[in-house]
């Protein structure tokens, strides 16, 4: 229950930010549907309230150069910057770009890893959504190859 309440609280804050940034009509929901439906890195980060996008060497994306199989591709996002609210992991050429969004708080390092599906070779992004509304990104190209017989 506490989980639910906290998530809702965050969403309320988020919706407020979005309204301020010029996104009226954004549905208040625990799950950021707009973010996960977005077809581009830009649209996905906008859905998390970011007003500007910039590359940053203080954000790190970890992913392999080559994935033997697109079904499971390890990816990690991290940053040492203070004032980060969320860390997003995105795959540019997936049908929907956003893979996962991790909320950052004082209790955890801003460093998360998971594994994503990739439909094809693509740039993958780590995006840090900052408290000041900036979105800072790092990207890396991951080649998806055919590892086996192709049968």
């Amino acid at each position, binding site marked *: 229950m506490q989980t639910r309440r906290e998530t809702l609280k965050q969403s309320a804050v988020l919706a407020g930010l979005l309204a301020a940034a010029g996104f009226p009509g954004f549905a208040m929901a625990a799950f950021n549907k707009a973010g996960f439906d977005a077809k581009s890195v830009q649209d996905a980060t906008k859905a998390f309230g970011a007003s500007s996008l910039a590359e940053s060497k203080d954000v790190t994306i970890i992913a392999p150069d080559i994935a*033997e*199989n697109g*079904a499971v591709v390890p990816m990690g996002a991290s940053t040492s910057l203070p004032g980060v609210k969320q860390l997003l992991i995105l795959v540019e050429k997936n049908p929907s770009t956003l893979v996962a969004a991790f909320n950052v708080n004082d209790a955890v390092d801003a460093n998360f890893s998971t594994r994503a599906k990739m439909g094809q070779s693509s740039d993958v992004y780590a995006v840090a959504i900052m408290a000041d509304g900036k979105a800072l990104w790092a990207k890396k190209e991951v080649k998806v*190859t055919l590892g086996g017989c192709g049968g």
Partner: protein
Amino acid sequence: MKTVFPLSIAAAMALALTPAMAQKTASQGIDEYRAMLADGNPAELFEAKGEDLWKKARGPKNASLEKCDLGKGPGVVKGVFVELPRFFADTQRVQDLESRLASCMEMLQGFNAAEIAKTPFGRGEMANVTSLATWVSAESKGLKFNLSQSHTQEKTFYEVGKRLFFQRGGTHDFSCASCHGEEGKRIRLQDLPILTKSPGDGLGFAAWPAYRVSNGQMWSMQLRLNDCYRQQRFPYPGFGSDATIALSTYLGVNAKGAASIAPAIKR
């Protein structure tokens, strides 16, 4: 901050991707990818399930498998994986891990082993056999393969398995040896273990059951052989059939001295 991935990955990632080095980089890239996956193998999920299934009272006889004899006496699990297939006096048959588990499920729990053998991989009690095999294999992690060849049937199965390994057929004339007869070969980017002798620790027979990332399934040795035969364009080998067990005997005996890494993670 704790380093999440091994240092070798960072080193591999620092390499520039120049065309002249493209091939070298490709295989290094694959190694890096595999290293990243090795930590956190979803096979653990199946291992946990298998252990639970072993201890739980189930089936028409509402009994656990804790009295199952996998070759080293009733209830002994550690070390059995690296000695299978072997001859069992009660069934008068050479059996691999999976066919033996099905026998135990019949004898102790009252399941019908023939029905289990007919169940598709990944379904019903067949999925349970796979989970059980995953757990049993994990209990021998790091141990070296050492199959018995003392019983006549074990020797005969080795010889039959050898013939099956070299049997060319189907539309493509493939035998197991077409891909696994020479050292250092690969299909596409996939390294192929040589299987006419021990390919080394954790390779070939010593690497299955394995979690396949390409389809998110847990693959037992029976399924590994089944899919090899499918891609060889051969007809369908029955689960636990003499051919699959004879072939496993050949591979297992050849793997002598190789340390098991099962359950592994594979492409």
